[in-house]
């Protein structure tokens, strides 16, 4: 997992990522993992256009990402960004490994409960992430780089 930083953010590639996390991590590559956007050429093109020129960028399906994420990690830090909880779960089901997962940008929606201003989950999503956290993945919440980390299991079991 060296040189890999995993984040889940429903806004996917956006200002917090481009102007916050990427420079903070000094990343040289970003891999967007999204079943939805990997198959949507218009959105995919816009997201790739948004990535700073000096960085390598790709948008892959969870299945392709499970194979490709580990490639070329010696070149520098890679930010692996999931666009949904489902994408992160599918990535693991396809054989991908996530040592530590940063959660941020899970927005309010139908049947979702607010745990933090930037973390909203429904029962199914909470269970999915809890199962992940009970396995091989440490999960913490942190929307932007210069704020404190909040342990996910501690938060939902309050």
């Amino acid at each position, binding site marked *: 997992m060296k040189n890999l930083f995993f984040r889940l953010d*429903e*806004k*996917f*590639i*956006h*200002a917090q990522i*481009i*102007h916050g996390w990427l420079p903070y991590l000094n990343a040289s590559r970003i891999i967007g993992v999204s079943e939805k956007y990997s198959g949507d050429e*218009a*959105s995919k093109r*816009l*997201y790739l*256009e*948004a*990535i*700073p020129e000096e960085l390598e960028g790709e948008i892959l399906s969870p299945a392709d990402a499970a194979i490709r994420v580990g490639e070329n990690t010696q070149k520098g830090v890679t930010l692996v960004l999931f*666009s949904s909880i489902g994408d992160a779960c599918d990535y693991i089901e396809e054989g991908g490994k996530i040592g530590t997962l940063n959660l941020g940008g899970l*927005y*309010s*929606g139908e049947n979702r409960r607010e745990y933090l201003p930037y973390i909203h989950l429904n029962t199914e999503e909470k269970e999915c992430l809890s199962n992940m956290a009970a396995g091989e993945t440490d999960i913490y919440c942190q929307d932007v780089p210069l704020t404190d980390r909040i342990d996910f299991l501690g938060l939902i079991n309050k």
Partner: protein
Amino acid sequence: MNQTPNKEVYPAIIFAHGDLGDSLRDAIEGMIGECPYFITVSNRGVGPEDIESRLEEAYSRYKDRPAVFIFIDLFGSSCWKAAKLLGMKNKNIRIITGVNLPMLLSFFTKRGRFEADDLEQEIKLAGKKGIEGH
């Protein structure tokens, strides 16, 4: 450059993070007075599913105008992506990123005197000229 009074007064939308749009509006109107045909929209608290509809709602008020200028704060942001997607469906949209006060002051003092293409060039130039280092 085509500069004639009484041309179309192009509407403007600022779509930006936090209170930036409202703050810019407050600053501009404090300098030049009330600006009609001007809407500010924030992306605060809006998830990916709703961000496009929030912009679309503002745009719908001006959709029949020959040109609508949408000012975005950050290239590559969710606001930018929503504007680009809306612009693919509506050819009268002009997207300007890196919104700043000089750019907006140029826009609001010159619209009505320039064709849309010329106005776009004018405001981009004003936005860049506003950046100096000493």
